[in-house]
Structures are given as C-alpha cells and as structure tokens.
C-alpha cells in the first residue's frame, strides 16, 4: 500500500512539476533499496536545484530482465543499480559507460579493493560499489560452548573437529552446519580458498576437475557424508530462524542481510547467544577468502545526462549518505571511511564483515557466469543426493560449462583473426 502511495505521489509530482529548465534524471533501483533511496532525494535536489531525480523502483526478481529489455528497446535509465555479477554482461552489450575519468584517486582508495575489482572489466571501471555483501559464518555461541569450543573455527581442520563435537552432543535431529545443497556459493568459496582456477585459458574452458577444486568439492561433500550437515535444499527449510533457534543447526554461512533478520526474528533470550565470524581458511592464513558481492551504480552508455548522473552517484557514495542508507536498510557501506562511524564500529556482528571484506575474491567476470553458477548448484545437489559420484558430477559439470562457453570461444577466435 505504501508503495502504491509512493508511486502515485511520484506520478503526481511528475505531472505537476515539469519545469523546462530542470534536467530530469531517470534512476532505477531495486527492491528495498529502491523504496528507501527515495528519502535521500530531497537532500540531493536541494543541493542540485537544476536536477530532478525520477526514481523507479523495480523488484529484484524482475530487475535483470527489465534492464535487458530496456536495453533492447533503447529505453535505458540514466543511472541504475545493478548486481556486480551482472556487470560483465552489460559491458559486453556496451550498455554502461566507464567511470575511470570521473572517479578520483583518493575516492578510489577508500573502496574495498576486492569489491571494486568486481566492477573492473579489462582494466576499466564500469560501476561504483553502492553497498557490499559477502558471506561468512553465523554461529550459536552457546552450542559451540557446550561442545567445548569457546572460539569460532579458524581452519578447515578445526572446523571438522568442531562439527564432530556438535554432532556428538545429545539430542536427535541435530546438525552442526546448515548448507542448503542447491546453492553454489559454498563449494565455490572453498575452491577459491584453495586457489582453484574455475575456468581456464581466459575463461574459455571449464576447469572443475582440476586438483584444487576437486579437493574443495570432496571436502564439501564430506560434510554431508559425515552427517554434519542435513541434505536439504533451501525450499525445504520451512523457517530458518526457528530452526536456528531450536538448535537444529549451530552454524550457517550466509550474508549481511541475515544480521537484521536474525536480530528481528530470533527470540529475545537467544540474542546474546549467536555471533558472526570471518570465513575459516584451509591453512593458517586466517581469515579465508569469501565472495565479493554487492550492488553497484552505473551510468548508461547512451545517456545524454552523464555529468548529472555522476553527481547523483557521487552524492549516494558520500559516507554520510551511505550511513543513512545503512540505518534504513542494513546494507553495508562500500567505503571504508563510512565504517569508522560509531554506528558501525561498535556493532560487533557487523565488524566481522569488515574483516572479511578485506579478504574477498570475485567469480569469473564473464557474462556466462550466472548460468555456470546455476550448473554448479545443480550438480553439487546431485552429488550430495548421491545420484552422481564425485567424479561423474565434476565431469558432467565440465561438459555442460564447456558447452555454455562455446560461443565465447568462437568470439575470441574471431577476434584473434
């Protein structure tokens, strides 16, 4: 209802204030962010009286389709939010403009390197991180205590020992870790931690049967084989928060959005009995790598208002605005200076993310990645269910991914000629 009201107000506003001397910027933002960013606009418009921003809110589930359709129909907005794994695709389409000439060096240094790197394709920057996310360990301190561990795990071996300890605690139907088997993130993180190169030869071929990934995949499946994690998919967990509260699982690898959810949905008595910790590492190099995620702001290639668009991006990237945004949405700021504010500096659960954000790696930056990721999830699930052996699953995965990359190989050959 609030949304409809908002949109209605927007339409009315648009109808009655069509001043000829004002530049109207079209800005597309997704989901909750699109709803909330509206409240930052009056301040921006006050500082830039000649610009009026038209915010269009798009649900996440339809965002990717809508942006591509807008591109095909030549109806792109001037500024838009996009998930940072989509950037390679929009660069291939020449739908986004490079930001290298606009971003100053001191500004650049303020961003988390690993995250900024996901926005760079062939050495050029195409998006500015708006908020960041990554995955790390959420755990129940009381359950680990009961199993005899006062600290979160730091290495893979420690982790296995801890999971065995939790599993051995009395109580039926108890698991150490929740690992939804239809998600690709954890096997990929484990692989990256061991230094696996997921695709080889300039991402022309799949490389999932290489030593490091094979070892990571084996470790991943072992967690299920030993019964430390239940073989369930995400849809089968009716209520994550209830299950976490009841002790069905003691650890969970997930992202920053769940801090707010857990604080909001877990029973009061449990609030001082859960914590977050950076990802563990295969060796002594704690913390281990995790994935560089988040959303960026980009300028459309064919926009005629690029300077004004950049002013909007700069405004939204100011530490104060990022903090305001954090307070409203819980989205983590992409600039280090915003993290010095007491609001963030004293939030211990959030601080684990700060540590982790300094240790992130990106997935291969090619347009085919999301498709490949869905294949990894597909075959990981088959292997967990035991429908395929480890070897069969990796072979089938390599075959499928090679087929997906066929066009890319053809294009690279064509370019080489």
């Amino acid at each position: 209802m609030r949304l409809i009201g908002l949109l209605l107000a927007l339409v009315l506003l648009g109808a009655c204030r069509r001043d000829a001397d004002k530049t109207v910027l079209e800005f597309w933002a997704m989901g909750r962010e699109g709803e909330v960013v509206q409240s930052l606009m009056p301040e921006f418009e006050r500082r830039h009286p000649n610009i009026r921003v038209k915010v269009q809110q798009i649900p996440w589930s339809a965002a990717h389709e809508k942006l591509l359709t807008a591109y095909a129909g030549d109806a792109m907005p001037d500024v838009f939010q996009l998930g940072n794994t989509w950037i390679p695709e929009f660069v291939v389409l020449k739908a986004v403009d490079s930001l290298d000439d606009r971003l100053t060096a001191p500004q650049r240094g303020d961003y988390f390197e690993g995250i900024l790197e996901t926005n760079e394709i062939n050495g050029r920057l195409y998006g500015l991180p708006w908020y960041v996310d990554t995955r790390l360990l959420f755990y129940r301190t009381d359950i680990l205590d009961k199993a005899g561990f006062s600290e979160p795990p730091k290495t893979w071996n420690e982790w296995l020992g801890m999971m065995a300890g939790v599993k051995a605690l009395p109580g039926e139907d108890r698991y150490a870790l929740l690992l939804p088997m239809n998600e690709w993130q954890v096997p990929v993180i484990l692989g990256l931690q061991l230094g696996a190169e997921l695709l080889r030869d300039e991402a022309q071929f799949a490389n999932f049967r290489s030593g490091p990934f094979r070892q990571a995949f084996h470790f991943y499946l072992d967690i299920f084989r030993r019964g430390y994690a239940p073989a369930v998919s995400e849809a089968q967990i009716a209520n994550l928060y209830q299950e976490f509260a009841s002790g069905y699982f003691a650890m969970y690898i997930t992202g920053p959005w769940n801090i707010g959810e857990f604080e909001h949905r877990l029973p009061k008595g449990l609030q001082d009995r859960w914590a977050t910790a950076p990802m563990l590492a295969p060796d002594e190099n704690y913390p281990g790598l995790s994935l560089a995620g988040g959303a960026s702001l980009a300028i459309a290639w064919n926009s005629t208002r690029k300077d004004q668009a950049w002013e909007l991006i700069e405004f939204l990237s100011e530490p104060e605005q990022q903090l305001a945004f954090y307070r409203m949405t819980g989205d983590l700021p992409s600039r280090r200076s915003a993290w010095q504010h007491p609001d963030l500096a004293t939030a211990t659960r959030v601080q684990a993310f700060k540590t982790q954000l300094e240790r992130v790696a990106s997935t291969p930056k090619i347009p085919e990645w999301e498709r490949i990721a869905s294949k990894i999830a597909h075959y990981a699930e088959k292997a967990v269910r035991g429908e395929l052996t480890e070897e069969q699953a990796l072979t089938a995965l390599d075959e499928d991914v090679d087929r997906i990359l066929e066009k890319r190989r053809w294009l690279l050959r064509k370019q080489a000629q």
Partner: protein
Amino acid sequence: MRTLFLPPNPAFWFLAPALILIAGFFFLPVAASLLLSFTDFDIYALGDREQLRFVALDNYLRLLHDPLFWTAIKNTLYFVLVGGPLSMAVSLGAALLVNHRLVRFKGLFRSLLFLPVVTTLVAIAVVWRYLYHPRFGFLNYLLGLFGFEPIDWLGDPDWAMPAIILMAIWKNFGFNMIIFIAGLQSIPARLYEAAIIDGANSWHQFRHITLPMLAPTFVFVTVITMIGYFQLFAEPYVMTQGGPANSTLSVALLMFQEGFRWWNLGYAAAVAFALFLIILAGTLLQLKLRRREI
C-alpha cells in the same frame, strides 16, 4: 493476365483492415521467431548483430537432449492430464447446479462463480499464497482439524504441482461453466419430459440425454481447455517461479526463462515451436477422436 487488373472482390476491402493487422501482428512475428529459432541469438548478438550465427536445427537437437526440457514436458503433461479433466468436471458440476430448476437467483450465482476468471492472477496469487502458507494457511488449518500433518504446499516438490492445479481450477472453471450452461439450455425440455414419462431417473437422464446432447460443447471445451492448459505459465510464474526443484517448471515457463533470464532467444524460440507442435498434435488428435465418436 487480365484477371490481375480486375478490381478485387469488394469483400476483400472489407476484410483488408483485419487481414493487415493479422499479418502485421501475428504472421510476421511468428515467421520472425521461426527464423530466430535457427540462430544462436543470445546476449552477444543483442549487443552486436555481427555475433549472430545461423545454426540450422542445432537448437532443436539440443532441446531433445536437454533434461530440463523433458522435465518441463512431464510437468506440463501432468498439469494438462490431471488439471484439464478435473477442471472440466468442476465446470460441468457447477453448470448443472446453477442451471438446476430449483436454484433461485441464477444470474447472481453465475456472476459469482465467474468472478475468479475476471480477477487478475496476481491478486489471486497473493490470496492463495496465504491459503497455502505452511504454518498460518487456512488449508493447513482445515487439515489440522482432521488430524493431518501440515503440508508445505508450495515448498514440497511433491505438493507444489497439485497446489498449482487446485488454484488453476478454481481460477478457470467459471469460463467453461458458462459455456456448459449455454449448452445445457439448448437441450430441448421435451426430451427430459419424454424420458420422465418412460420412467427414467435423474441419473439416466443425465447419462442418456444431457451428456450426448452436450457432445459438441464437450469438443469445444476440451480443445480450448487443453490449449489453455498446455500454455501454463502465469500460475507457476507468480507462485513458485518453477520451483521447488523444478517441480512446477512448465514448457512456457522454460521458454520464458531461457529467453528473458538467460537471453538465449534462439533457443527459447525453438522451445516455443516445440510447444506449438505439441499443442497442434494434441488438438488434431482430439478432433479426430471426437469426430469418430459423433
């Protein structure tokens, strides 16, 4: 040669506007997408037409080896074969009830039962998602009264399709009901009178008068229902997005995902034509069977 210069039949001019519209907005796009299905149009081709390749029947061959396509076919057949007959049975039942001579306020009931058909699906989906909610849903509350365990309607791969079928039947039965009512009203009352005089009970009347007299209506309703149900898309799109574990992925939804999620428009066009062939075959088969019966 001379016939070329003769003024065309005046009827042509009357038909021309409609023909032009059909040609421009139906045959042309269909022909274009047929061409598209012989190419590998994808995200690269969208950015630069130079990167488009003609692949002949490659998309169709790949389709035959795509396990996802066969899953989609299986799910769609499940929906058509279970949902179709059930939906027709419900429509016929509702039509018989509403048309019964003892029922008063016939117009009111007809309108009420027709309401779901004209309501937008998105609004219906919101309400049904509450009904299906595993913990607070009304359906599980009812089951609980009879001592059954709650069912995770939309989350359990075995229950998601039945849940979609139930919702689709509720949404669509009103349309066929109206057609059945029209069919029922065209049956002459004297047939029933004669049967009553001969001592036929109401089951006999239904079996030997109503059903045979409704046969032409049945042909129409079956064909229309089948065509509609084969194109299952909106229900799983708004309720489950094809999940859980692809258990509600229909052929049309697969086409949409390939086309607009992965932007493989060439492949998606091939899926579309495969669906077209399936529906065409199904329709021809039905017409043939019915013709033999009549």
